[in-house]
């Protein structure tokens, strides 16, 4: 900004202030108060504001903890779902399915030992979709290079704070059924 523009801007702001003062002069005479003083805040007022903030922060922490504790006790049950295509899944491969709702993607893995393991597909770090890496026999997240154990869903490395959500499965007559979903790292 050139010095001319700057001085014009300063002059405009000052003239606005003068116009406001001129326009409010009659009211100022009837209800006198100092505009400058009005803009100030005392230490006492700021202390009171900080006390209110302190109350709000305490209530926020207590409320958040209370809601989390309530949610931890409120274990949802979901109807069983047959996983299509699981029967033909080869050892060392995986397929995606949706459970318990259409918006919840999940991953079914048939490990090298032939057993099935299923997890929610959302990484517990920032919800990126995880995938099964056959060569390393791990579940990996491509976003921030996290790794999860293929049998337990536990975090092997990377930033996720808790294990993957586990999906309980049952094999009935060769068909694989999803029976429920357990939040990873769930503490009873």
């Amino acid at each position, binding site marked *: 900004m050139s010095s001319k523009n700057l001085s014009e801007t300063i002059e405009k702001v000052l003239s606005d202030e003068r116009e406001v003062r001129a326009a409010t002069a009659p009211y100022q005479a009837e209800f006198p108060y100092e505009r400058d003083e009005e803009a100030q805040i005392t230490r006492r007022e700021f202390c*009171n504001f900080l006390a209110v903030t302190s109350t709000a*922060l305490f209530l926020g*922490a207590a409320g958040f903890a209370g809601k989390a504790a309530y949610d931890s006790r409120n274990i949802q049950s979901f109807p069983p779902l047959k996983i299509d295509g699981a029967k033909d899944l080869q050892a060392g491969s995986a397929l995606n399915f949706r459970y318990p709702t259409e918006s919840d993607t999940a991953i079914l893995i048939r490990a090298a030992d032939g057993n099935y393991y299923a997890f929610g597909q959302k990484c517990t770090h920032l919800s990126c979709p995880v995938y099964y890496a056959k060569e390393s026999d791990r579940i990996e997240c491509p976003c921030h290079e996290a790794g999860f154990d293929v049998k337990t869903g536990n975090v092997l490395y990377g930033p996720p704070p808790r294990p993957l959500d586990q999906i309980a499965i049952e094999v009935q007559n060769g068909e694989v059924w999803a029976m429920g979903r357990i939040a990873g790292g769930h*503490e009873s």
Partner: protein
Amino acid sequence: MSGEDKKFKSTRGIAAIFQAKLVLMVMINLAQLWILAAAIEAALARHYKELLPLVVASGVCWLISLSIIFWWKPVGRR
């Protein structure tokens, strides 16, 4: 001693006390902000055992800030 001087002398100590209260309150607020962030982190990670100590710590901070506001009054010169 003029009236202005008297007023200055009588309010000087009070201003210092309110300044000290202000600094303490700011520090308590910062601690509570950190505690709230830790509580959210613990809840999202489902580390429920960490929540109660965090809430208690926040409550202690809140009580200290209340005590600063309501009970820490400047004592008159004896």
